[in-house]
């Protein structure tokens, strides 16, 4: 008995997510995820098929539970978030984020603006680790010479925010009033007044929202007239051949990498499933339009063949 106790402890440490896994399936192996992708018929598309339920990856869960479950996923991946992103996307997520920020061109250049008042007011939703926020501030300061642009990082998950605060210490913005962290649900941003935000960004976050429409309407409320909603999110691959390869990679390799590197397979299984369930480019464009925003051009820009896409919307004046 005394010998067995430390062994159990050791096993528990090695397989971090065993407990959470128990509720989903009695048995899982490396090939399970591939089988999931191929055999499991995704639940019906319409989220209204049953009152008060929504999807969590390929599972159908009660709406009240989704937030909690997503919270658990991100609490468990917070510390290894960056390393995992690099492994899974082969570093490309950094290029996407750089492109996203460069295209938005944040900051007010004092050379071209005669009335050199305050800079932009940026709200970065689901940006707990600060990836987008630090890039925005860097771009505004170094490219546009703007020392006033402010970024408010909002995230529902305190663990991700803690990770972001920790990282902020190695940037020049840690103690400056330009960077602020708030714990908030994107569907009820009560602490943000109406028409106060120039730029609302959400990078790889909107996928996990329980009610995407509500979040979009909330974005519309907080944006100034003329303000921009910008969203970087996984999307649908256009080329069927590339899509087949990409599905293999995401369902086969990503949960495996999650298990090996982060010791947490389930969280990464959820990740790929949630990507699969996220609406296509045109569907999401229509959702943005339904919230009352104007979309530029066709409404989105594909990145790396549609693995990710940038959607934008402008609040009309």
């Amino acid at each position, binding site marked *: 008995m005394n010998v067995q106790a430390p062994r159990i402890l050791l096993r528990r440490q090695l397989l971090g997510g065993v407990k959470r896994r128990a509720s989903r399936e009695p048995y899982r192996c490396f090939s399970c995820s591939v089988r999931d992708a191929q055999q499991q018929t995704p639940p019906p598309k319409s989220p209204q098929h049953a009152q008060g339920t929504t999807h969590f990856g390929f599972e159908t869960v009660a709406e009240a539970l989704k937030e909690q479950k997503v919270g658990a996923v991100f609490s468990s991946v917070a510390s290894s978030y960056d390393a995992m992103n690099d492994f899974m996307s082969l570093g490309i997520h950094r290029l996407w984020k750089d492109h996203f920020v460069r*295209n*938005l061109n944040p900051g007010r250049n004092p050379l071209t603006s005669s009335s050199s008042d305050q800079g932009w007011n940026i709200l970065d939703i689901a940006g707990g680790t600060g990836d987008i926020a630090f890039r925005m501030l860097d771009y505004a300061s170094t490219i546009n010479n703007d020392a006033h642009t402010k970024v408010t990082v909002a995230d529902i998950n305190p663990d991700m925010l803690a990770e972001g605060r920790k990282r902020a210490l190695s940037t020049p913005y840690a103690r400056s009033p330009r960077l602020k962290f708030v714990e908030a649900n994107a569907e009820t941003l009560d602490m943000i007044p109406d028409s106060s935000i120039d730029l609302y960004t959400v990078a790889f976050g909107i996928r996990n929202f329980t009610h995407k429409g509500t979040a979009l309407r909330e974005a519309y409320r907080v944006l*100034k007239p*003329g*303000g921009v909603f910008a969203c970087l999110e996984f999307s649908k691959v256009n080329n069927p051949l590339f899509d087949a390869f990409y599905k293999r990679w995401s369902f086969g390799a990503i949960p495996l990498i999650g298990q090996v590197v982060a010791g947490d397979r389930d969280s990464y299984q959820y990740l790929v499933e949630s990507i699969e369930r996220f609406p296509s480019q045109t569907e999401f464009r229509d959702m943005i339009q339904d919230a009352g925003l104007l979309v530029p*051009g*066709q409404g989105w820009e594909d990145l790396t063949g549609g693995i990710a896409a940038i959607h934008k919307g402008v609040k*009309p004046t």
Partner: protein
Amino acid sequence: MGSWDLKPHPSMATRSLLGSFRATSSRLAAAPACRRSFHSYEYTQPPPFPPTESAILSAALSHVPDHGFTTAALTLGARDVGYLDVSTNILPRGVFDLVNYHLVMQRLALKDTVQFPAEAESGKKLGTGAKVRTLILARLRANESIIHRWQEALAIMAQPTYVPASLAELARLADEIWFLAGDTSVDTSWYTKRASLSAIYSSSEVFMTQDTSQNFRDTEQFLDARMEDVMKMGSIFGALGEWTDYTAHSTINVLRSKGVRI
């Protein structure tokens, strides 16, 4: 009866000529729903740009003489019409959208700025060549106010991403000019006319950016010289074709007279 004047849409021509320019055609498909592939006097075309975009772009264009084709001009334009700096994100292609706006608006303005007198009034008939010349000059004059900034625009248009869209717009301009000049050809000269006009127009446009003469007289001369070249080339090609045809027939006939079965 005569109210329908069918004209193949320029995008069809570019699509068949330059089959790989998918980006342009898909962008066209995403544009306003009611877009006809032919020219009609009965129905007015929908406005080329959505209201918000055209408000920002037209305001931005007034800043081009001072700020050039830059994001600064776009930002100032957006502020002029009550939008924020960030609102320029409504333009997916940034400064190229500004250049494109100028190109499209000036192309569409051509039919209103140039009016040819009816034959009965003036007494003498104005040839198609003369009409084309007038139209090209009118289009070049439309660049006059921003000619000192036009090299920037040419540089933006020459960026690999925007080359297909720029060429398509050039083809549309050539098509518009031939249409307004009253050309109704339906043979292969439809293509050669548009190709040669595109070459003439674009070279004159580049020449004009360097022109310092009074009232752009040098550009006018340059244009005349190029049009003459094309006509000379046309007659040379015509004569060459006739000669080749004659020689080929004679050769075959000589061979036949020698008993070769052809």
